[in-house]
């Protein structure tokens, strides 16, 4: 698969259980790029910066590889692929722990505009995101950190041909650098699922105040955004209600699930490698059943989580009616696996695994932030049950 495909992917409207050869080649290309551009030394350098990414690497991955627009239709300047390819990119980024505003720009902002925007808005906003010329993000959750759209309190008051936003958003990924903010807000006097909509504004609008948050995971930076009468444009129509937001969150959950299985695989590989090197009691520790069995169980867990993440992406790609339930399923499954794999990876490394110099904590912290971002596994398990009609 080239970055600018001639043929549209996913002609078959059924759920596939294997990646195509083109998808595997695409994965290899992304992996090679990351091996070159995102070794852990770079991750460590960038996580210590305020911006948190390397603009040159961003330019390269947006240019030749055209990754931010991988899932954006060609008519809006993207590569025209879908959720499966987006999942592949996320998995590889998770594997390498790439520090870049991809999740915020491509997954959150672009999907929000794709799901909510009018055709004119998509034509206006998406091409810049697709070619990485503009960074974006989506602001949903607020100070209490709840992911249920019913809890949104930011108010959008009609004002002339636009709206004014008031309230506070928090835990906004890359909110400190994103230029295009997509904000979930509600009509004055509305409650619950009614009156919700998505609005777009630039970060430089007057009445927008952004403050970086002290994120435990320094590779995924968060910000708080105070909105005081900030002028914004409604994306799409009020009639669409909460649906575009919910769809965006579900797509984001699938993308994040794929990122998480990539990270989990890195941790498993690292634990396996270390257990073959480390000698105690005159033997490699990997020859002890206590370690072997732990690693065999982790392999099973990681493969099960991959199956959930891949299946959800495949289902979303063909718009299988069950895909929103599968988004919750995948988010719950992969969050638990990622964190458990990280904890066991530290355990297998022993004392060295608890040091700053050992790389495991970088992934551990991403696992921790991913566990709660978009909702804790228990939240998604409950959502899954509701979506299955239980």
């Amino acid at each position: 698969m080239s970055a600018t495909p001639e043929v549209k992917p996913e002609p078959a409207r059924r759920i596939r259980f294997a990646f195509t050869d083109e998808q595997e080649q695409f994965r290899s290309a992304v992996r090679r790029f990351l091996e070159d551009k995102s070794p852990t030394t770079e991750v460590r350098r960038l996580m210590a910066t305020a911006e948190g990414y390397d603009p040159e690497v961003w330019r390269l991955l947006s240019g030749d590889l055209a990754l931010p627009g991988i899932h954006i239709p060609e008519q809006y300047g993207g590569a025209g692929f879908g959720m499966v390819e987006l999942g592949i990119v996320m998995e590889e980024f998770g594997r390498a722990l790439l520090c870049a505003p991809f999740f915020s720009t491509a997954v959150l902002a672009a999907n929000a505009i794709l799901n909510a925007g009018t055709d004119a808005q998509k034509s206006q906003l998406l091409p810049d995101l697709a070619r990485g010329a503009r960074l974006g993000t989506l602001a949903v959750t607020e100070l209490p950190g709840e992911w249920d759209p019913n809890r949104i309190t930011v108010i959008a008051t009609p004002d002339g041909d636009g709206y004014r936003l008031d309230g506070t958003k928090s835990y906004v990924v890359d909110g400190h650098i994103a230029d295009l903010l997509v904000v979930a807000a509600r009509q004055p006097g509305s409650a619950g699922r009614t009156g919700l909509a998505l609005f777009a504004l630039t970060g430089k609008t007057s009445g927008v105040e952004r403050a970086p948050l002290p994120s435990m995971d320094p590779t995924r930076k968060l910000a708080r955004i105070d909105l005081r009468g900030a002028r914004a444009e409604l994306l799409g129509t009020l009639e669409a209600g909460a649906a575009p937001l919910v769809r965006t969150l579900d797509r984001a959950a699938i993308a994040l699930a794929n990122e998480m299985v990539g990270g989990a695989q890195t941790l498993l590989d690292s634990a396996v490698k270390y257990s073959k090197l480390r000698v105690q009691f005159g033997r490699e520790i990997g020859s002890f059943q206590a370690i072997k069995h732990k690693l065999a169980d982790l392999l099973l867990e990681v493969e099960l989580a991959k199956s959930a993440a891949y299946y959800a992406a495949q289902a979303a790609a063909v718009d299988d009616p069950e895909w929103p339930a599968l988004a919750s399923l995948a988010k719950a499954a992969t969050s638990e696996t990622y964190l458990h794999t990280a904890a066991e990876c530290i355990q297998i490394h022993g004392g060295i695994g608890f040091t700053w110099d050992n790389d495991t904590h970088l992934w551990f912290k991403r696992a921790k932030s991913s566990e709660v971002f978009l909702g804790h596994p228990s939240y998604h398990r409950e959502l899954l049950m509701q979506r299955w009609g239980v």
Partner: protein
Amino acid sequence: MSRISEAQVRAEVREWLAANWDPDLSLVGWRCRLADSGWGMPQWPREWYGRGLPHTLARVVEEELANVGAVGVAKSGVRLLAAATLLEHGSDPQKKKFLRRILTGEDTWCQFFSEPGSGSDLAGATTRADLKGDFWIINGQKVWTTSAHHADHGLLLARTDWDAPKHEGLSYFVIDVKQPGVDVQPLKQMNGHASFNQVFFTDAKVPQENLVGRVGEGWKVAMTTLAHERRGADGLASPSKRGARVGRIHAEERAETEKANQPYTWYPQRAGRVDLILERAKETGANQDRYIRQEIAKLLILAKSAEWTARRARAAQQQGRPQGPEGSLGKLAASHVARGCSSVHTLITGTEAMLTGKGSARDGIIAEILVSVPAVSIAGGTDEIQRNIIAERVLGLPKEPRFDTGPFRNVRKN
């Protein structure tokens, strides 16, 4: 060999069926025709009741048989494991003597591998075979033998050399089960069923010509049997599809299937019955409980992920890709699912989970799940052995130090 097309095969088998298939024949009478024609096992070699067709075309033949409602050759139980082993390692006289009666269903087979002292460590068998004149004399005990009480012949792994290392002192035999030196006893399990036997050998006799492969090569031969067992997994014998058919032959086949499946009635419960979870939650009202909802979701996520992992393995295989780690994980995943089911069924059922039998939850099915699930993580290789295999073969971790090398006589045993 000339390439034969699917259309040719279909035409040939149709023509043969038109001339030969008759539901009023006896089951054995029909299967004799089928075996002799080679259409019963078309993937077998021509000289041994087959037609040398590739597996893809063998499936075509199976379809054609099913289309006219024709019964196939006998395939249930250990039969086909015996056949596969004999085809690969047996002498021509052995093939001549046994293969045809396997396919016609006239003979039933069982497998004498596991022993009370060698479970996970199958090669540690201590049942002995000593050559006296023209006969091998067998003494010892085997266990977990399915259907030994019906069987005519057994596949026997026994030790013929105590000074050789463990794996090199074993030989492989076909033993006549119906003889005075073989005492078959039922083995009652914790769930009340007795699906297996324990079998005692006291100076039982095996004629020399029933040695399969060479003396000392028993382990190699046994690996063939086990490989086929793994491939076949737990497949229950199924009667010919497309509903109940009338005619003598179908009645005989149904009786055969019923007898073959009898030991397995509890197997669905052993796997945990994940299919009952949501129904049970709804019928008991447990679906209203926030904690139980979480536990149900965890279990169903696990079960779904396991199912998709198996499908990923199959899809990779179909695309001709090398099998990834997902292919070795099914058995361990099934154990996790079964155990999860057992605990969630208990949560849903509550105090009533103390009861058993027809008057208890779901006519005793729930109780049967709870007392059958412990078998899953043991049968066919314990979870611990599976983890060792995964760790060593998939992850490439170093082997454990061994204490069972050198002459088997000196190795510590139970």
